[in-house]
């Protein structure tokens, strides 16, 4: 679920596959296969943003599907003013924010996130460097750090969490995020600053 920017994900230059707009025009004409291709192209990013916002796989699965269904239903209203990627992201983010508002106090029992971090990532030098060296308690510290990070993410407001997710996890640039969230770049930067500040405060015991 690596952070991928739209320019990286658009395969027009890299392969002979049709670009997004061509697929969108075909899908607008009722071509379900073209829409399938768009789903395949962006499913990882859309699932990623929803998943990091909710920290819950089942919710992320449901919301991702809903976002793609809504995008299909609203496809005729897509005029191409923004890229399809941005438009689709906006639908997914709005749907997720509405979902989070409805379930403000979610059951923490269902929360799971970095539990599914793969082994390779657990041995990633950055993560190893973040937890206290090669002590016998490293694994316990790592698990605790994962839990702490997820809890800290969930304690951020939705507006802060979405900015952190889109920028620091998914790697989208500020202007792209501003377009998705329908706000200006300064707002994105401000939210990002405060979100990081809060995370740093909450995780201060675990960060060097």
């Amino acid at each position: 679920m690596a952070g991928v920017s739209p320019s990286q994900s658009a395969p027009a230059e890299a392969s002979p596959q049709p670009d997004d707009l061509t697929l969108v025009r075909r899908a607008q004409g009722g071509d379900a296969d073209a829409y399938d291709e768009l789903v395949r192209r962006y499913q990882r990013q859309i699932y990623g943003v929803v998943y990091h916002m909710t920290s819950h796989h089942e919710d992320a699965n449901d919301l991702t599907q809903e976002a793609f269904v809504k995008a299909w239903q609203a496809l005729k209203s897509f005029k191409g003013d923004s890229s399809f990627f941005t438009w689709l992201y906006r639908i997914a983010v709005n749907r997720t924010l509405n979902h989070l508002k409805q379930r403000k106090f979610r059951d923490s029992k269902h929360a799971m996130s970095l539990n599914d971090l793969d082994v390779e990532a657990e041995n990633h030098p950055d993560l190893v460097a973040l937890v206290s060296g090669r002590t016998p308690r490293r694994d316990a510290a790592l698990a605790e750090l994962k839990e702490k990070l997820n809890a800290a993410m969930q304690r951020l407001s939705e507006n802060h969490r979405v900015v952190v997710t889109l920028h620091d996890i998914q790697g989208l640039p500020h202007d792209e995020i501003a377009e998705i969230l329908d706000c200006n770049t300064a707002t994105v930067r401000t939210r990002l600053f405060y979100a990081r500040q809060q995370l740093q405060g909450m995780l201060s015991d675990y960060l060097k």
Partner: protein
Amino acid sequence: MKPAPQNPDEFESVKKLLALKRHEEPPPGYFDRLPGQVRARIAQAEAGPEPWWRRWAGLWDVLPAQATGYAAFACLLVLGAFWLANPSGSQNGRQLATTPTPPAVTNQANAGNLSNSAPTGLFNTPSLPVQPVEFKKQ
């Protein structure tokens, strides 16, 4: 309120930690199944069209500004209809407030009943010849 000047390395640890979340993966094979599931949901949605209120609620996700506009317009319609229907009622209300109304006959009758005395026949039982009883020790 603007954030303080940001040192590029200030949040380096947090950024590295967050970047590691990119390695999180859903269960294996999930992305192979997802397009089929989306297609099935689209087919299901098209087979049984959603009621208007669900379509409207869904508009909040796609075009939140437009949905808010529709909601505001609907509220204005309801308030306007209420206001148009109400002037005659409010005029009557003012008349009632300013014009003294003669006391109704029924009110006078009720006013009598509001005195402290209980209705006849309820507590004022007809007097009976009651003799005091004497208890004698035997």
